């Protein structure tokens, strides 16, 4: 709407309303999707804030943390995983640079690389789950929060992989993404950074400071 409506000629305004919706949906209607998507991520971050605060409260209230008898958490694998996930943020940013130069091939390659890194992270997490000495519901509060928090983050990583695959699938069509039109690429990148930032908090809380 911004600015465009005032300058329209009367002939355009008398244009049949039902048809104009279909025809100039993209040309006339400014794109608010990125704004809406960022609002969604702010909202989504509050889900993690809620879970983090719950964890920190348990930790603050408990006399010993982690509760007595909690096995040590292995650090090496998660640290490698962290490096992979954090570097993937730089990799996906290259995809954004590529599409802004109208280089669809380059964007696809960088997305594929990010998918590979994200999948490695998830595989590492599954391996870690399989080898941990505590389970989800064994009466250990640290164990339960550990699985729910990392599990929720893992779910978000998985959704990120789906989003990237969707962008790749859509980019088969020539001209679907261009230097002018690449909301899908941009939103996926922002989402991936979001997932990374969440992981930084998670990794610090559950592995480094536990």
């Amino acid at each position, binding site marked *: *709407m*911004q*600015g465009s*409506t*005032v*300058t*329209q000629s*009367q002939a355009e*305004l*008398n244009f049949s*309303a*039902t048809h*104009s*919706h279909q025809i100039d949906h993209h040309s006339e*209607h*400014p794109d*608010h*999707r990125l*704004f*809406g998507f960022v*609002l*969604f991520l*702010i*909202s*989504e*971050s*509050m*889900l*993690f*804030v*809620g*879970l983090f*605060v*719950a964890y920190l*409260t*348990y930790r603050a*209230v408990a006399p010993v943390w982690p*509760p007595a008898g909690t096995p040590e958490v292995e650090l090496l694998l998660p640290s490698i995983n962290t490096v992979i996930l954090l570097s993937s943020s730089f990799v996906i940013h290259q995809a954004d640079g590529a599409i802004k130069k109208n280089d669809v091939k380059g964007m696809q390659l960088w997305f594929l690389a990010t998918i590979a890194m994200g999948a490695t992270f998830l595989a590492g997490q599954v391996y870690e789950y399989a080898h941990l000495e505590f389970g*989800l*519901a064994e*009466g*250990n*509060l640290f164990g*339960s*929060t550990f699985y*729910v928090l990392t599990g*929720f983050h893992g779910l978000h990583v998985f959704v990120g992989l789906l989003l990237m695959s969707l962008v790749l699938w859509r980019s088969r069509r020539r001209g679907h993404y261009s230097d002018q039109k690449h909301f899908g690429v941009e939103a996926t990148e922002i989402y991936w950074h979001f997932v990374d930032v969440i992981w930084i908090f998670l990794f610090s809380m559950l592995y480094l400071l536990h």
Partner: protein
Amino acid sequence: MTHAQPTAHTTHGAHAQETGNNWRKYFSFSTDHKVIGIQYLVTSFVFYLIGGALAELVRTELATPQSDFVSREIYNQLFTMHATVMIFLWIIPSLTGGFGNYLVPLMIGAKDMAFPRLNAIAFWLIPPTGILLLLSFFVGTANSGWTSYPPLSLVSNQAGEAIWILGVILLGTSSIMAALNFMTTILKMRIPSMPFQKMPLFCWAMIATSALQLIATPVLTGAMILLGFDLLVGTAFFNPTGGGDPVVYQHMFWFYSHPAVYIMILPAFGMISEILPTHARKPIFGYLTIAYSSLAISFLGLVVWAHHMFTSGTPDWLRMFFMIATMAIAVPTGIKVFGWLATIWGGKLRLCSAMLFAMGFISMFVIGGLSGVMVAAVPFDIHVHDTYFIVAHLHYVLFGGSVFGIYASLYHWFPKMTGRMLNEFWGKVHFVLTFVGMNMTFLPMHVLGLQGMNRRIAEYDPQFATINLICTIGSYILAVSTIPFLINAIWSWVKGPQAGANPWQSLTLEWMTSSPPPVENFDLDPVLVSGPYDYGHVNAQTYNTSFVIEPASAQTAEAEEAATASS
């Protein structure tokens, strides 16, 4: 300069066409915000009647001290579902989804919401979830109250509780989707001639409401997820026997559910701020203070949640903080109330049904607000916690406030939505019955609470019998009060007198198009020629010619001229 005047003839023609062919659109996945708004309103009203029926069962049980009408277990299920339905399926969807959808794009001159398909998805999550929640009666529905505190909620009906958790997550998701849509629409899609300080107050209220929904709802989802794990997987986040902490649940729950109170009242505040100036024929008193007080309530609303937990072992210093923060909310709320009173003071009041409900709203809400300040005080709250005093307080806010606000708005905007006028006589009968019934039901509960009658218990001491009987009779009057409204609404929708574009001679943009508005709202793009509440500052012609099409430069000049004239 071209004036565009929708004549009576074209209005009728458009209306006949709409009702003639298109009633099916209300049952379709329509992306028109007006259709979605009406879908929300009608659906949530059906849930209101169901929630009301549950309330009547509760009151019937409480008519006598013994638990003789239903069993104690069923009684617990009834009051749990009553609150769940009324909060999540009636007040929140009708205020934000219903009126928000219908009014926001019209008021800011937009063609639709920012994300029409997301809008439709948000609505279509509601009916199946509502039906799912109601069907859970067949497996024994949740029976630990709408707060669903663990460990009680972990040891009662497991299937019903699981369905309840799922339902709350789905309805919360719908609410988040709607909120981000409203936020984007209001911030990004106003017509160029509408700066923030010329935006209708309802839009300010919707910004404040949407912010709360976006920030607070996900925390409730988090609480539900953890509760679900406790219930179904056997973790012990909230279960003290496994080392968990039930108070953490209470914090997470109230971090959403206290702001939810403002989600349920801020849009009503906004609509009352539209209705009062229109029917008092005066500018709103203190436009900016009313606008900013919505934002202040929204912010303060996020930092008062633990006042629901004064008896949950909350430490003294924390109680002190939450007591003061809670009482501080009375300031922006009081600003609004005094602004409204000053608006109608000396006005040429048009005492139509909408105005009666709006004034009923102020008086009833003030009672609820004052008892709110009382229960914010820790020493007082410790005595009345979980008594009928709380039940009285919350119903004055949610029934006397939210529901009166919804009724006032239904009477005010029904002509716009349907193109037909409601019958004023039956509207007034409806108002009198609702007003009397509401006070008869809830006013005596203050006394019950102070005498020590506990809430959520099917049996009570015989000394409370008389007052309880009065409450029950009052609740039957409330049930009867919906009948004239329903008949009036249905009859008027079909056969009521034609409304015309602007029956109330109002100045906001939604009245500057035909009733009901065409698809994409405005045949000609609207331009502001006056502020939303410039009653008495504009000449009579403005009410019919407020949208003007002309070259850009002349338009801006006229908008500025109108702005200087009004200020």
